[in-house]
């Protein structure tokens, strides 16, 4: 099969949603599954962190953060000028695309694993690091640094937000307890990960089906942006990864991170920090187009890209 089997669950949810099935995944199950996924990803990252001396990761991490910051900074003027969007909307969408999608990352990792392609484990650490800077940039773009931005409130929303708490908390626990300490928890957090991911994708399909109406209202520019932006960001990610000496698998994952758009942390933070922005636009683009695009076509494309760059640069 050209794509990861778990994606079929997304398509099932999408179909059920479009057919107005009475299949509804209770909101509480959504929350429970997302708590599980965020914590499990954090734990995996922490175990990787325990294996690598943090110091050796630092230069790579800084390079990754610096290049990734380009994504929202480029997206913002594009959306303003060519999309004709207002300041708040452009900033909010830029923040969504600058941040990352945990589930897209997990599907990419599964896709690589299903093909036996190795990837550096510490990419998860980058996932955690890339989650929030774009959110801050988004708020800066919307409001400027100065007058009247309730920065305390915004910082609290970002850093005490569910996804950062669970990702960073899981990271610290995995790092402190180490591989042997976490091992009795593997039955839950490692073995069941992919099955839970499948259930979550079923739910995301149902949610995405409900966003299709928003999409129609969003117009063709945003639809194009929702495919062009991840492709461009994917190139940047694959390039960065290759130059940093990551394996093809690692560069694929970094490209996926750059290309993915957040729909867990970003909507929550932007709603509070930039309330004037219309969430239907950012979520419609990120979840309705970019997310399925990345699952179905993006990941294989980034892998092909990473392979080509590896050939070119070494």
């Amino acid at each position, binding site marked *: 099969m050209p794509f990861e089997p778990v994606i079929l669950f997304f398509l099932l949810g999408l179909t059920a949603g479009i057919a107005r099935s009475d299949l*509804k*995944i209770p*909101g509480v199950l*959504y*929350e429970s599954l997302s708590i599980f996924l965020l914590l499990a990803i954090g734990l995996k990252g922490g175990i990787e962190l325990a294996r690598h001396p943090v110091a050796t990761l630092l230069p790579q991490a800084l390079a990754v953060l610096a290049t990734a910051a380009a994504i929202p900074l480029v997206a913002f003027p594009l959306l303003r000028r060519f999309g004709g969007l207002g300041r708040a909307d452009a900033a909010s969408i830029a923040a969504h695309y600058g941040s990352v999608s945990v589930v897209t990352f997990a599907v990419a990792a599964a896709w690589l694993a299903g093909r036996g392609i190795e990837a550096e484990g510490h990419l998860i650490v980058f996932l955690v690091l890339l989650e929030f800077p774009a959110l801050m940039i988004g708020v800066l773009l919307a409001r400027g640094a100065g007058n009247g931005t309730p920065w305390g409130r915004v910082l609290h929303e970002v850093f005490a937000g569910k996804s950062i708490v669970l990702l960073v908390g899981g990271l610290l626990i995995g790092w402190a307890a180490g591989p042997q300490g976490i091992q009795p928890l593997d039955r839950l957090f490692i073995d069941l990960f992919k099955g839970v991911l499948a259930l979550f994708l079923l*739910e995301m399909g*149902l*949610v995405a089906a*409900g966003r299709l*109406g*928003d999409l129609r209202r969003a117009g063709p520019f945003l639809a194009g942006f929702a495919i062009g932006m991840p492709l461009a960001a994917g190139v940047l990610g694959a390039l960065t990864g290759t130059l940093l000496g990551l394996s093809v698998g690692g560069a694929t994952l970094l490209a996926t991170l750059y290309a993915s758009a957040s729909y867990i942390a970003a*909507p*929550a933070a932007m*709603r*509070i920090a930039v*309330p*004037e922005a219309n*969430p*239907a636009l950012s*979520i419609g683009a990120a979840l309705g187009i970019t997310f399925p695009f990345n699952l179905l076509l993006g990941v294989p494309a980034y892998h092909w890209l990473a392979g080509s760059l590896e050939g070119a640069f070494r």
Partner: protein
Amino acid sequence: MSPRTTPCKLLTIICEAQLENDLVDDLQRLHATGYTIADVRGRGACGVRDAAWPPSASIRVEVLCDERTAGNIVDHLERRYYAHYAMVLFLGDVAVLRSGKFTS
């Protein structure tokens, strides 16, 4: 109505679930003596909010209070949230037992 009951305002707020933390702080600051919150879903001017995931979840907040407090809360909510958030407000008249509990 029984002589032991006193008239009281019941303010109901239906809004995005994400406002809960802020709203609760606002209510305390505006001297509401309490509140009650339920999770709901619905449709309104901002479209369908089906509670299938956090961004589309809604809450229904009830506040028993005197008329002045209700007015203050309505003013504040209208100023701070009404323009940018899915929000509906309505006021009703009820009779409470032990009214001391609901005046600030």
